[in-house]
Each structure stands twice: as C-alpha cells, then as structure tokens.
C-alpha cells in the first residue's frame, strides 16, 4: 500500500452529508460543496466525488458491486457494536432504517473492539482513503470465504467509525445514500473552487460530457487546473454522455424550432446504444451509460464486421426484429431477451438489428463539434451496411406534410415515432444536454387492438432467406361494402407456422393475376397480386393511422388511412367469403373505441 501524503477525515465528509440532507436548495447545496472541496486535498477529491454519489466508480466501468446485503450488514453492525445479530435486527425493525440503527447502537458506546480490552491500538479517525479502499476491497473480494471477509472488512470500518459515520457508511453500502446532489451542482461547486472565473463551468461540463466520469474530471481539475481539462478529448472505451431530444407534437412547431429544415429519422423502439470500436475491441454502453457489451455478442460482431474505421464511436438503436421478414418487433421482445439467462439462446430467440443515427468519433477525429449532416455523411462512409446493421431510415425535408407522412410510416412499421434534427451549421452533438436541436415527435394517442379481424389476402411479397421460394408476407385488406372494394390494412409476415408457409404458393396458385385486381384499393405495390378470395384471421397490437394503407383513406385524417401495427396471422377462415371479411367501418369503430392518450410509460432500466 502506498503512503498517502494527503487525506481528508471521513468526519468532514459526513458532516457535509448531514447538512446536505437538511436542504433542497441548490444554492445552499453548492455552498456546502464549496466548503467541502476547499478542505479536500487534490489526491482524494475523486474519491470524495464518488462517495458523494454513493459509489466507487462510474457505473459504466462495470466494476463489481459491493455485494453485501441487509443480512450481512446486520452481522457487520453486530461485530462493530457488540450487540447480537438479533438485537441489531430488532433495532432495525423498530426504526425501519439500517443506517439509523447502526448510528444508535454505535452511540451506546459498548466496547466491541478486542483491542480496546487490551488497551492497544488506539482508534485512529477514519479517513476518506481508508473508507474508499476498504469498500473497494469489499467489492473486489470474491471466491470461497469472501462473504465472511466482506462482513469483517465492513465490521472493521464500523468499529472505528463514530455513530454518525456509521450511519452514512451503512447507507453507502446499502446503496441508499441519497443526498439529492445533482451532478450539475457538483460541477458548479468545482467551478467555484478551482476555476478562477465563471468560464470554468462550461469547460468542466464539456470534460464531464466527454468522459462521463466526474471523479476523474475533479481530479484533473484539482491537480492540473482548468487548462488541462480544455485539452481533454474523446476516448474510445469511455462513454460520451448522450445528447437528448426535446419533444413537440406537431410538424409545424418542429420546423419553426429547428430553422425550417430537418433531418427526420425513425425513432426505433429499442435500446439506445453507444458503440465503441478500437481495432477488434468493442464496448456497448446504454443510454444510462451502463456497460451492456456482454448482453449483445451479436451487435459486437456486427460492429467488428461493418464498421470500417479502425477506431470509432457510433450511436444507434438496437431493436428486436423478425429475422424472416426483417420487420421490427415491439420493445417488450427486447425485455424478454434481457431476461433470458443464456445469452446465446436469447440471441437466437430474439435476434436484433442495429439502426445507426450518429457518429461521434472516427480515427482520431472528434465529430461531436461537427454539424449533423457532416456526421451522418461520415457515418455512412465508414459503415458497410447490411440488413442487420445499417443507418436509420431518414429523410431531409422542409415540408410539414412530408414529416407527418414519414411519422405515420414510422409508427406503422413499429417505431415509436420520429426524431427531427436541425441541420444548420451549428447543429453539433451536444453531449449530455437536452436541447432543441433534436426533437422527438411521438404519438399522443394510440388505439390498442383488442379483437381479431378477418382480412382478405389481395397480394403477396417474395420471401427472403429462410422463406426463399415461398411468400414472405401477405397484403391484407378489409371490405368496403358501399364501394364493393377491398382496401388494404396491413402486410402480415408473422405468426405463420412453417407448415402454413410452405403451402402458401400452392394455396394461392389459381388466384394469381398479373395486375392489381380492380376491386382492390392499394397504394402499396405487391410482388404478386391475387383475386380477393381467401380470408385469414389476424390480430395486431394497435390500429394506427397510416400513409400507405387505404382503409378509410382520408376520412380520419387527410393523407392517411387506417392500418394494423404488428399484425400476426392466427388461422385461415375457409368458412368465410371475401365479402364476409371485417369491413372498413368495423375497423374505424375499433380504432375510435380504443383511442386513448399515450401515457409516458416508465420503462424498466
């Protein structure tokens, strides 16, 4: 162990913790942090920053957690106070707060340390270094007997702690140190202590956004000053804090906010990922900057194969897909994938595609300061696109109707909506910031589909891959009795068993015609057209507005019809003739009945 030249008593930190708990005012918090940082030697400021956040490292490092649960903490408190486990537990139950229980029991000043009985080894006050390195050892201890050692190490800290220190130590170990200090407040305080002028604040923030490690930023700042932070650059393997989007609910407002012209991209419903590549080494970070590399061996492979730059940082959305049709699958499927224990089984059952939308770094060049169009062009040039790893669907437009149409198409194909991005010269990548350069456009309403419908097959699309030689999907229509027409509502490719699939060409062979049937109303060009005759039962997730499908065209909304989102084939209905199919009126009725405001659902982390 190397000698620490300069340290901070843990007591000082804890006193600030206690004061921070009593306030919610940002100015007061800042003042307290300034007090703390002024007393903190540069050598330990990183540790102070991590401990304030109740952690030992930035989350993205994927370092082991403390791995010490309630039962073990009780044992450690028992060791440190001389009270039996059950006495500690009783106190815990009474107070409902383990930290508080530790504090009260410690305050009773029983002799618990053996050395106290011998009058040897006077207790030295805890220091930040001792606390940090002991917690670090607890986290890193593994293997047989490690649980006992973890408990004893914590017991040793609590043994030497004051009552108040014990309370906060327990909170840190429990992961319940919630001081409510935002990172921004810490940066304010760092700027006041180490920056000579207000100008230091944006420099600190930029450095933090580039490395996502506030402890590291604080240490560089304290040891080398603001100038050193200015030269900090993007590092492959360290996540960049993601740029976030504002939200609006009309194309006109969006255009007004962004300067009249946008790059509109599909907002895929999956997991946002920042993919780092350095030679063959790949890192994948989530939106919350957790290291999720191990969850996606498939994405690692895509990145290795399809990113042509030697070093790069790209951003994209990982989405579950139907490998047979290439269609997007709902977000829930990705959650199911995550719950699988064996990642290789999960990869097979829930294959994913990656849709890339940004480039932050490539071979020595930091692209975060460059405008989006340049970023996107460079991205295109370094990606060898494939079905499973390609750029997000996008258009550039200044026309609100085009945005609306693109939006409806996105929804119907299974996306959440679109993201419209300003494309002027100042539209840089604002790491860590939510701003008006990017604007989300999502649905305000949706209509969940509760019942199945019976639809007529009016066309088909050639299958690819496993479905070569048969149909990949069928174009399905509802019946319009007034006009005696069949109007399309979806393309169904999911839900077919292998047996059904195999028989499709045989089943439809006598109905094939070389042009669209006159009774069929379709804007979509099928590969093969049928005489409308065969009826199938289909279920979907929602009924949604569509710029492609013609059911009730222009009646609910100009330039849009009704369509079924995430349709699945259930079974054939040989008992039904084409005129017995669900009518366009019934579809409209279903749409209206279930139309609800979309709640921003809290997603599991």
């Amino acid at each position, binding site marked *: 162990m190397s000698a620490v030249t300069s340290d901070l008593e843990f007591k000082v930190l804890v006193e600030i913790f206690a004061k921070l708990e009593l306030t919610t005012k940002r100015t007061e918090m800042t003042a307290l942090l300034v007090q703390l940082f002024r007393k903190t030697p540069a050598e330990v400021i990183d540790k102070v920053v991590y401990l304030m956040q109740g952690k030992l490292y930035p989350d993205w490092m994927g370092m082991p957690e403390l791995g010490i649960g309630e039962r073990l903490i009780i044992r450690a408190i*028992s060791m440190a106070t001389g009270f*039996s486990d059950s006495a500690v537990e009783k106190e815990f139950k009474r107070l409902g707060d383990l930290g508080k229980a530790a504090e009260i029991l410690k305050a009773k000043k029983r002799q618990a*340390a053996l050395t106290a009985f011998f009058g040897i080894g006077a207790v030295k006050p805890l220091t930040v270094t001792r606390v940090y390195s002991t917690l670090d050892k607890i986290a890193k201890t593994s293997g047989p007997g490690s649980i006992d050692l973890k408990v004893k190490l914590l017991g040793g800290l609590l043994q030497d702690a004051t009552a108040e220190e014990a309370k906060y130590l327990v909170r840190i170990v429990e992961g319940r140190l919630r001081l409510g200090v935002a990172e921004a407040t810490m940066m304010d305080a760092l700027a006041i202590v180490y920056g000579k002028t207000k100008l230091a604040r944006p420099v600190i923030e930029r450095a933090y956004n580039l490395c996502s490690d506030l402890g590291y930023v604080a240490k560089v700042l304290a040891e080398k000053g603001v100038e050193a932070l200015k030269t900090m650059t993007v590092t492959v393997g360290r996540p960049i804090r993601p740029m976030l989007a504002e939200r609006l609910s009309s194309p006109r407002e969006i255009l007004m906010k962004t300067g009249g012209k946008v790059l509109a991209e599909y907002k895929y419903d999956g997991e946002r990922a920042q993919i780092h590549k350095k030679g063959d080494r790949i890192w994948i970070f989530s939106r919350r900057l957790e290291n999720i590399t191990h969850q996606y061996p498939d994405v690692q492979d895509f990145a290795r194969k399809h990113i042509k730059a030697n070093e790069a940082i790209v951003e994209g959305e990982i989405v579950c897909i139907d490998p047979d049709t290439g269609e997007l699958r709902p977000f829930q499927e990705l959650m199911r994938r995550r719950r699988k224990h064996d990642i290789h089984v999960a990869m097979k059952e829930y294959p994913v595609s990656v849709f890339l939308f940004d480039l932050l770094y490539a071979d020595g060049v930091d692209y975060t300061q460059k405008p989006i169009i340049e970023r996107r062009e460079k991205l295109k040039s370094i990606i060898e696109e494939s079905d499973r790893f390609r750029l997000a669907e996008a258009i550039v437009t200044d026309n609100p109707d085009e945005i609306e149409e693109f939006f409806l198409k996105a929804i119907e194909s299974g996306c959440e909506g679109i993201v419209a991005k300003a494309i002027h010269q100042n539209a840089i990548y604002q790491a860590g910031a939510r701003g008006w350069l990017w604007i989300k456009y999502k649905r305000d309403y949706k209509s969940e589909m509760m019942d199945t419908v019976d639809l007529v097959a009016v066309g088909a699309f050639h299958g690819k891959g496993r479905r070569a030689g048969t149909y990949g999907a069928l174009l399905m229509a509802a019946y319009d009795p007034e006009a005696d027409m069949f109007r399309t509502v979806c393309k169904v490719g999911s839900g077919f068993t292998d047996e059904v699939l195999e028989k499709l060409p045989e089943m439809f062979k006598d109905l094939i015609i070389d042009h669209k049937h006159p009774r069929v109303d379709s804007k979509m060009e099928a590969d093969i057209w049928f005489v409308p005759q065969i009826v199938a039962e289909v279920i979907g997730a929602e009924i949604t507005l569509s710029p492609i499908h013609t059911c009730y065209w222009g009646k609910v909304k100009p330039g849009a019809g009704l369509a079924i989102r995430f349709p699945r084939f259930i079974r054939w209905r040989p008992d039904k003739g084409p005129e017995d199919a669900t009518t366009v009126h019934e579809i409209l009725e279903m749409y209206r009945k279930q139309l609800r405001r979309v709640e921003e659902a809290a997603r599991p982390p």
Partner: protein
Amino acid sequence: MKAILPEARAFASIIEALSRVVDEASMKFTPEKVVLRALDPAKVSMFIMELPSILFEEYDVEEEVKIGFNTAVLLKLLKRSKRDDKLEIALEEGYAKFSIIGAYSKLYKILNIETAEEELPEPRIELNVNAIIHSEPLKHAIKDAETIGDVVEFSAETEDELIIKGKGETSETETRISKESGALISLEVKEPSKSTYAIEHIKNIVSLTKVADTVEVSFSTRMPLKLAFTILGEGKVTYFLAPKVE
C-alpha cells in the same frame, strides 16, 4: 534462513484456522521462535501463533525475518501435504519457499508480500475463569450451539463445572464439563463469571481441536474469551474474542 517442521499437517490445520480470521498475515522468524499475530479486519478477534525453535527439526534463523502471505493461497498448498510429511520454510529473493517433504518433495514459491497490518503487541489481560479441558467437548458444544442460534455463553459459578450454552430465539443447548465427566482437567474461578460470544467467530478456530488434545479456556463477565491450544508439544495458538452484549 531455513526451518523444518516435523509435521506439515499440523501446520496446515493452524493455517486453516488462520485463513478464516484474516486474508493476509505475516510470520516473524526470530532466532528463538516464530510468531504470528493477526487481528481480524473487524477487530473483534485476534489469532496468535507461537512456535519455539526447539519444535523444529532444523532451525536456522540468524536475524529476524518476516514472511507475509495470503492465507488462502498458503492453505491451498499445505492441504496437499500427507501424514508424516515434513515442511521446510525458506526465504529467497522476495519469495517464500514452502517445501513439503515426504516420499518425494514438492516446492511452492509464493511472493513474500508486505502486509498492511502494523505489528501488534502481545495482549495482556487478567481473566477470572481459567479452565483446561479436553478439546473434543468444546468442539461439540460449539457445533450444538450453532444449530440453534448465533451466540454461545460460557459460565462458571464454582470450580466444579464449566457450562457452555447455545442460545437461540426459542431454544437452548447446554454442555456441562465437569471433573466427574473426565472432560475437565482443571478449573480456577476467581469470581463467578458468565459471558457471551459470537459463534461465527469461534467456529473458525474449532478446526484446531484436530491437532490439540486439550485447550485452555479463559473468560470473565463481559470480557474477552481466550482459547489457548497447545500444538506439537511446545507450540501454542491463542485466540482472543471480544464479548457480545445481549
């Protein structure tokens, strides 16, 4: 330096108990003896080993040296020893060399590490109850107590018997060790005493009962427990444990 112990297995038992107390420790070799003192990280218990030079078949230590080691690593090596194997300990350029010598000899080199622990002085404490008992009944009393709770109580009212009680939420166990039963060799009670200790610590060193026929048990009310095991004739392992409060 070089030292040869006649029984590698006995040393393995000592290190087994030690490994449950600390993860790292340091042995000090002086011309007279080998001493190891270790305080567990929670500072609740202390482990002291003293092996005088006469216990060794060969003992060549001219000046004081220290061998620091990871207890789990050393234990793993020593577990490879068989009955009647000897153990040779030597020091060479930053490495500690442990050779198990039997029908053939096996040499392990492990890095001589510097342990963080500062050197502990020899603890001095007066306790009111001092008993010498056979080690078997102690082992069983602890095992019984472990099945029902997490503390064990030692008490002695008179010089006739030593009582070891296991205390759980709803049940109790009791082991009486008296002269009549033959398990008690001697008992001195300066003041009637009763004190409680955590089983999770005591059980760590119960393995020493394998290599020590008798054990000296000392305690006082609300004071530490001292267990002293005599090993290899002149060798000694002493264990101190802080009391629990009910």
